C-alpha cells in the first residue's frame, strides 16, 4: 500500500461565538495555519475534503458549495463528508485514501462547525413525520450509558471529576482551547450543577465555533518536507445501527471492531505499551474510561483504574487528551479532526506546552451518532 503522511495541521481559536469571522473566514483561519505548518502553497493542493456535522447546525445546505473558493477548491475536486460526530476523523481518512489510491499528491482536509450561526438544539429537535425523533441533547442520551458503566463495574463516583480536572488543566496549556481552566479542582467539579445524572456541568463539553485543517501528502511529498511529518500507519472506520438487539452502548461493537482492525493494520500488539499518547473523543468526562476499554488499551472494567492511577495525565504511561480534548473545545464537525490533528502534532513534536515528551506513536479517535460511527487513525514519527 502507498504511504501517506500528515505534512501540517492548523486550527482556529475556538470560542462560543466567533462573530469576528464568517464561515469562510473561520475555515481560512485553520487552513492558512495548516498550509504554513506544512510549508505548502495553495498551488500544491490537488483536492479538498470538507467535513462537518448536520447542515442544519449553520442553516446552510451543503455549505462547501458557497465556500468552494474560500477553501481553495475552485477548479479542483471537492468532497463533502458527513458521518455524524465521527465526521472529522472520517474527513481525514477519506483524504488519506485519496493519497493512498494514488489519485493525488497533496490533499487538504478541512472540518468546521459554526454553531452560533444557527441553533443546534433546534436542528436536533425537528420531528419529521414517519420517523423516530433523535432525543435532543446529547447529555440526556448518553447519561444512562454512563450509569450503566458505573453499575456494571462498581466504579467510584469521582472518576468523572478526575477526567474533567485533567482535561481542563491540559486545555489551559493549549492556546487554541475554548475552555482554559488552570484553577479547576476535583472539589469544584463536584460542586458544579448536576445536568444529567451523573454528568455535572464541569464534566460536559462546551458548544464551540471552530475549524481544523490538515494537509496530507504522499511519500514523495512527505520526503520533500523540511519538517518532521506524521506518518499515517493505519486508519479504520466502523458502523453499527443506533439500536439493535444486543447493542451495548457501554462497549459498542463498532468501536471495538474498528480498534481491533486499526491495531492489526498498524502492527500494534500491545496498544498500552506501544502507543505514547491518545486523543479520544470524550464529550462527557466519563467516556475516557469507557473508551480506554472499548479500544483495547485495558480490559473491561479496568479503564477507571487507569484514570484513577493518574497514568492518563501528562507525564503518565498513556497521556489522554493532552490538548484538553472535546471537554475543552467542541466545534462538533471539527472535533474529530482536532483529535486526529493533535495526534499528528504530538508525533511531529509540535504540540507546544501540551507536548508529550518523546511521543512517537499516537492514536486519534472519534465517534458519532448513538455510539455507532467510529473513525480512528494511528500516526507515527516513523512510517
Amino acid at each position: 500500500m502507498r504511504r501517506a503522511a500528515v505534512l501540517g495541521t492548523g486550527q482556529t481559536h475556538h470560542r462560543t461565538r466567533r462573530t469576528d469571522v464568517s464561515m469562510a473566514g473561520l475555515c481560512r483561519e485553520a487552513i492558512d495555519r495548516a498550509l504554513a505548518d506544512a510549508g505548502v502553497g495553495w498551488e500544491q493542493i490537488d483536492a479538498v475534503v470538507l467535513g462537518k456535522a448536520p447542515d442544519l447546525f449553520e442553516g446552510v445546505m451543503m455549505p462547501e458549495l458557497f465556500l468552494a473558493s474560500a477553501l481553495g477548491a475552485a477548479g479542483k475536486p471537492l468532497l463533502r463528508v458527513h458521518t455524524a460526530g465521527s465526521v472529522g476523523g472520517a474527513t481525514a481518512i477519506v483524504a488519506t485514501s485519496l493519497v493512498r489510491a494514488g489519485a493525488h499528491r497533496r490533499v487538504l482536509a478541512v472540518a468546521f462547525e459554526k454553531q452560533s450561526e444557527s441553533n443546534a438544539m433546534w436542528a436536533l429537535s425537528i420531528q419529521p413525520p414517519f420517523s423516530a425523533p433523535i432525543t435532543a441533547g446529547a447529555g440526556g442520551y448518553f447519561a444512562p450509558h454512563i450509569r450503566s458503566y458505573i453499575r456494571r463495574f462498581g466504579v467510584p463516583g469521582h472518576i468523572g471529576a478526575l477526567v474533567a480536572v485533567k482535561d481542563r488543566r491540559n486545555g489551559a496549556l493549549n492556546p487554541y482551547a475554548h475552555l482554559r481552566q488552570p484553577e479547576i479542582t476535583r472539589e469544584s467539579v463536584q460542586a458544579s450543577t448536576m445536568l444529567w445524572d451523573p454528568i455535572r456541568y464541569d464534566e460536559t463539553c462546551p458548544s464551540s465555533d471552530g475549524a481544523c485543517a490538515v494537509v496530507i501528502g504522499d511519500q514523495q511529498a512527505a520526503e520533500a518536507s523540511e519538517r518532521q511529518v506524521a506518518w499515517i500507519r493505519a486508519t479504520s472506520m466502523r458502523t453499527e445501527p443506533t439500536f439493535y438487539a444486543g447493542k451495548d452502548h457501554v462497549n459498542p461493537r463498532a468501536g471495538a471492531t474498528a480498534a481491533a482492525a486499526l491495531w492489526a493494520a498498524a502492527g500494534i500488539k500491545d496498544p498500552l505499551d506501544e502507543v505514547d499518547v491518545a486523543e479520544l473523543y470524550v464529550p462527557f468526562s466519563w467516556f475516557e474510561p469507557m473508551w480506554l476499554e472499548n479500544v483495547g488499551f485495558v480490559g473491561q472494567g479496568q479503564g477507571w483504574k487507569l484514570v484513577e492511577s493518574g497514568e492518563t495525565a501528562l507525564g503518565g504511561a498513556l497521556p489522554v487528551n493532552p490538548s484538553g480534548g472535546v471537554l475543552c473545545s467542541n466545534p462538533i464537525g471539527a472535533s474529530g479532526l482536532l483529535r486526529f490533528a493533535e495526534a499528528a502534532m504530538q508525533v511531529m513534536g509540535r504540540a507546544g506546552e501540551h507536548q508529550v515528551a518523546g511521543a512517537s506513536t499516537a492514536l486519534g479517535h472519534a465517534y458519532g451518532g448513538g455510539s455507532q460511527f467510529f473513525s480512528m487513525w494511528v500516526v507515527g514519527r516513523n512510517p
Partner: protein
Amino acid sequence: MNGTAESRVAVIGFAAADVSVTTSGVETLAPVFEAALGQAGLERREIDFWCSGSSDYLAGRAFSFVNAVDAIGAVPPIAESHVEMDAAWALYEAYIKILAGEASTALVYGFGKGTAGDPARVLALQLDPYTVAPLWPDSISVAALQARLGIDAGLFSERDLAAVAAGREEASCVETLLDRPYLRMPLREHDVARVADGASAVVLAAADRVGGRRAAWISGIGHRVDPQGFGERDLTAVPSASAAAVDAGGLDGVQVAALHAPFTHQELLLRRALGLPDAVRTVAFGADAMFSAGLSRIGAAAGEVMAGRASVAAAHATAGPLLQQNLVCVLTAEVAA
C-alpha cells in the same frame, strides 16, 4: 483519475426505485439492495465497504442518513461512510477505497424524498448565506438567468430547449410545448425536470472479484467544482464539467451518455462543455430523483455497456446551482490495457 491495468474497478450491479416511502429511506433501500446484490451475485456480507449520499435538507431533519443504515443490517459492524452529496460522489469515494486496496467490493447507495418539501425553495439555502440566500431566490429562477444568458449568447433558442424536452417525453411535439406559458421566463414547465422520490444502488468490485460476472469497467472518473458566485464564471460555460471529462480520460469513443441535467438548457450546455458530438445518444430520464440521480446515471451507463448496446459509455452527475459541481465517469466493456 484513470484506472490502470493493475487497479481496475467495475460496476457489477445496479438497481433503482422511483419511490421513497419515508425520508429515512429504509423501506425503499432494502429491496434496492437486494436487487443490486442479486445482479452482482454477491451476498450482503461479501461487501467490504458501504458508502451513501443523501441530504439532510431534502429530508428536513438532521442526521437523516443515520436511519438508512438500518436497511443494511450492520450487525456485526461494517466499514461505512457517507457524503452529503449526490451518491455519484459516494461512488467515487468507494472507487478510491478499492484503488487504495482498502476494499475489494463496495455497495454505493443514494436516496431522497424530494417531494416531501419544496426543493426549488430549499435549494436557495445552497447559496451564500450572507449575501444571496436571504433574498431566497428559488432554484428555477436562478436557472432561468443561465438559460437567458445562453439564449442571448446565441448558443440555443427556446425551440432548442423544447426539442430537448420533446426528446425526453414520448408523444410531445415542439410546437405544442412552445405554446405553453412560461414558468420563469425563458423556462417553461417542460424545461424543468420533475422532482421525484427515488433511491438507487451500484455494486463495485475490484478486478480479482469480478470473476465471470457481467461488468462495466470504470476507465476513469473525474470531478471538479467551480466557484459559486454568479459573477465568478461565464455561466454559459461549465469549466468543472470540461475538466472532469479530461480527468476521466476524455470522452473520445463514447457512444452513449447519461447526463444529469435538471433543466433542458443545462443538457445543451453540458453537451457543449463535454464536447459530445450530436451522434452520441443520451439515456433519457423522466425525472430528477435528487441525491440518487447522479448515481443512477452511472448505473444506467453501466447498464448500456453490460447489455452490449455500447462499448464505451459516459455518465455525468451535477450538484449545486447552475451546474457548479460536476462528475464524469467513463465505462467500457473491455478492461483498459
